[in-house]
């Protein structure tokens, strides 16, 4: 295989890698934006408050944000404040994550947000509401799925790609520098030109 062909294959792989990065970035951003129709709506009770919790992806995609919206289903005196967390379930190796949200412009006392689901398995979206009637907590169970798993050995093989390239580069450099009369260990002339 000629050098140019090999370089073109490397270039094609590079372009493909760049596309993967850009597509993943686009999907990550899109996942935080709620769609027009929720995939699932749960009616829950959080203490004295009746809430409708809309999830825009069901099951959730692990590794991406889960867009959600919370809206009271009954009239509420005064304003409500919220705290939302995604909590990993039993056996899920992850940490609780505070979900980000903002006020829903179309629903009074409603919010729209994105909860991070980092690992596949059972999770809970916890919504804590505070208002004039007191505090209430609602837990919404979520299941997160991931892409099919790759074998651990394949993951490690890909992870070492920079080192393969580095090794090939060094070997090429060593073979290029190797000349019969040159040991490559001569001291470098040092000048104090700094």
């Amino acid at each position, binding site marked *: 295989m000629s050098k140019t062909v090999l370089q073109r294959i490397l270039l094609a792989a590079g372009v493909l890698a760049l596309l993967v990065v850009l597509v993943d970035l686009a999907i990550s951003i899109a996942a935080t934006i709620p769609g027009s129709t929720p995939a699932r709506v749960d009616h829950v009770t959080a203490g004295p408050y009746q809430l409708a919790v809309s999830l825009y992806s069901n099951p959730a995609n692990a590794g991406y944000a889960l867009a959600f919206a919370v809206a009271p289903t009954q009239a509420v005196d005064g304003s409500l404040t919220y705290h939302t967390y995604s909590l990993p379930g039993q056996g899920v190796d992850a940490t609780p994550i*505070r979900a980000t949200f903002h006020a829903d412009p179309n629903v009074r006392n409603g919010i729209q947000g994105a909860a991070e689901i980092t690992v596949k398995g059972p999770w809970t979206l916890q919504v804590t509401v505070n208002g004039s009637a007191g505090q209430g907590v609602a837990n919404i169970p979520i299941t997160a799925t991931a892409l099919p798993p790759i074998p651990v050995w394949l993951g490690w093989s890909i992870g070492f790609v920079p080192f393969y390239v580095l090794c090939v580069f060094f070997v090429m450099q060593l073979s290029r520098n190797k000349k019969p009369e040159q040991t490559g260990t001569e001291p470098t002339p040092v000048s104090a030109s700094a």
Partner: protein
Amino acid sequence: MAQHSIGGAGSLSTSTSHTPSLHSVITLRLTCGLVTLFGALIAFLGTSWDIQWHTFVGRDHTLIPPHEMMLTGIALGGIATLVAIITETIWVRQHRSIATQFTPFAGLFSGSLGAYIAGFAALNAALAFPLDTYWHTLYGIDVTLWAPFHIMIISGMALMAFGSVYMLASAANLATSIHALRERRTAYLGMIVAFATTLSLFTLLLFNATDKDYFLPLGFTSISLFPVLSGLLLGCMLVAAVRAIPWKWVATSITVVSLLFVLIDQLAVPPALAWLMQIEQLTFRAVHHSIPPQLSIVAFLWPLLSLLSAILIDLFVQRALKRGWSPRQLSIAIGLAVFIGCIPLTIENPVLSLDLIPMLGVLGTLLSLIVGCLGVFIGTKLGQSVGETMSTLER
């Protein structure tokens, strides 16, 4: 100073109004090399912050501020190398006669070797991020540096800094050829910082090597990979730098700059973590750590004997010149100096090497050191070769 253009019958000729001058090439490589280096430095500081975050808070989501800082550094380096390659490709397409002064790639691009290395490395590190997220979705948060795509991210960032060394070396050699002293000095200073950044990023991968969970089992005993990895790293980086940069105290300067980065870590990372935790309303993980969150993990796990190695390398090189040592004598002396850096000693545990002996056993310790010697030998040989190339590289 006379204006020089590249290409033509001689290596240098008087500039025409159309052919890019050698000064333009030097300025481009110097600027893009320094921007790439700056990107790698941002990535290093972001990684230090990230290590602190993962250890004390846990991994929560992909776009946390430390990850954003790392990605910013990677993107900066990637864009800088892309600008360098595209600009040089345009120059070559407009003036075919100068093509031999640039490194061709795939029959489409022309540029400096360093730009290709740094560009590849930046892309590698960027690609590793979504792969790492995917890996975490499958296998959990695994707070360890020795996970496949953590290694890919960190080595990608380190190679980005290494690519900037090549870019700056090329600028330095071109500047030397036209006696542009200011540019040459800037390029050499940049090379020292770039070597330090490369060394610092690769050093992050040494942290797990003294942990007994990461000893390499051989069946009859286990060995620690710290000596061999440290030998490869110090041998390659410090020896290459000493050969490539014709100044005194180069190796020492590199490790001092590297320690300066660690000091910045200690001053900036713990307050940054505390600030971010307050904003994000997060709490510390309920896991005990020997290092409190007020201290930077990177600073406290940093292998300190690399400084002694570097000082000895510089002293031996200077003594070799004064006393006319043979190449073999100098190689042995440098090898011994590098080997000292293979002994683990950190602020967290100044007697770490002594603690490792009972864990590894006598046989395991001896084998670790023997394999370490092999690392020193290979690292030093690679360093000589890399340094030799850098000292003459113009394209």
